[in-house]
């Protein structure tokens, strides 16, 4: 299991989701990623993306304008 981090601050949606999508293409089950973003639309997008791709959204927080999501790769 590997843990990655993605800095998507300053990027507008869907660029942060594209970064997640690219991560998921090479990640293996149980790999985790921590992604930070500042686009408020990322909150709804990351929930929908995890639901659609069946990856697990472990946590989703917003502090001082920075959204942090932790995700676990589930699907093969």
């Amino acid at each position: 299991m590997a843990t990655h981090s993605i800095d998507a601050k300053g990027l507008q949606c869907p660029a942060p989701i594209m970064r997640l999508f690219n991560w998921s293409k090479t990640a293996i089950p149980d790999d985790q990623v921590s992604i930070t973003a500042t686009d408020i639309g990322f909150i709804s997008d990351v929930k929908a993306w995890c639901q659609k791709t069946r990856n697990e959204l472990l946590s989703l927080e917003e502090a001082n304008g920075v959204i942090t999501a932790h995700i676990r790769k589930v699907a093969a």
Partner: protein
Amino acid sequence: MSTTSAPSVHLQRFEDVRQLIGSPANPTPLVRLNHVVPAGVGPLYLKLEWYNPFGSIKDRTALYLLKGLAERNALEGKQLVEPTSGNTGIALAALAALTGIPITVTIPDGVPEEKKTLLRMLGAEVWETPDDLCPINHPKDGAIALARSFVESEATRDKYVMPNQYENPDNITAHYETTGPEIWLQTEGTVRRFYAGFGTCGTLTGTGRYLKEQDPTIQVIAIEPNKGHRIPGMKNMSESRQPGILDRSILDRVVRIDDATAYAMTKRLFREEGLIVGPSTGAIVAAAVQELQDDTGLSVAISPDSGFKYASFFTDILGDDGLPAG
């Protein structure tokens, strides 16, 4: 006594590949369809846009988009980014390479490998983007939304400029100044109907506007694929954002075509007319042929690109067709 006259198109010599892009002085061919059109109707001519040097009608668009950006000093120190199903990207990448401008292309997934490979051969960076990448905010337009994010994001906005074929009036001008006049000249003003597909809508709006200015009774007909279609380069407007450059007042009507009918006509064009066309040509011709009557007059349909870039795509739709039985 010898006489001299202007050389015919076929005797022209070109000093730069850009001079090969269609223009009234060097038009792409109009070819009559003699077998897929029922006897006694028509005639229907196909405008072979794949005779443009980078292989599609988008060569015209790309040339005008870059010319417009250069005239507005919008290219200095910037990289290009453009969402495209392939043809505009190929044309932009070729033209950008000629002038040393880096280019990133965001492309919907499902675009044939041939197009993606050509883009990379031309030096473009290719981001393949699922259409439903961002299901909440940008349904069905993931590649467009991603390209827009490059030019609007705080972190990258100083680096990129987007020609934006969907919203840029230079896309209309390209067809208003070239495709429209070519058709008018090549048909000696006898064209009665013009058929083109819904995509960025630059062809429909620019060509249609020019033709209607010459003769308001010329009919401009848009071809729209069904929802969930698999015809690269075409758009169903109820599942995609309507391009800002579409002027619906120019359209006389919209004709819907399903994939099976489009593919069937594509095959017929290969086998009965000897025309190796892309799937969108099949859709456009199928719609035009359905409408032809004995008093229709001369119609012109656009063939946006050739079939050479779609070999893997055609493999999917052929099934066992053409394989030895048993």
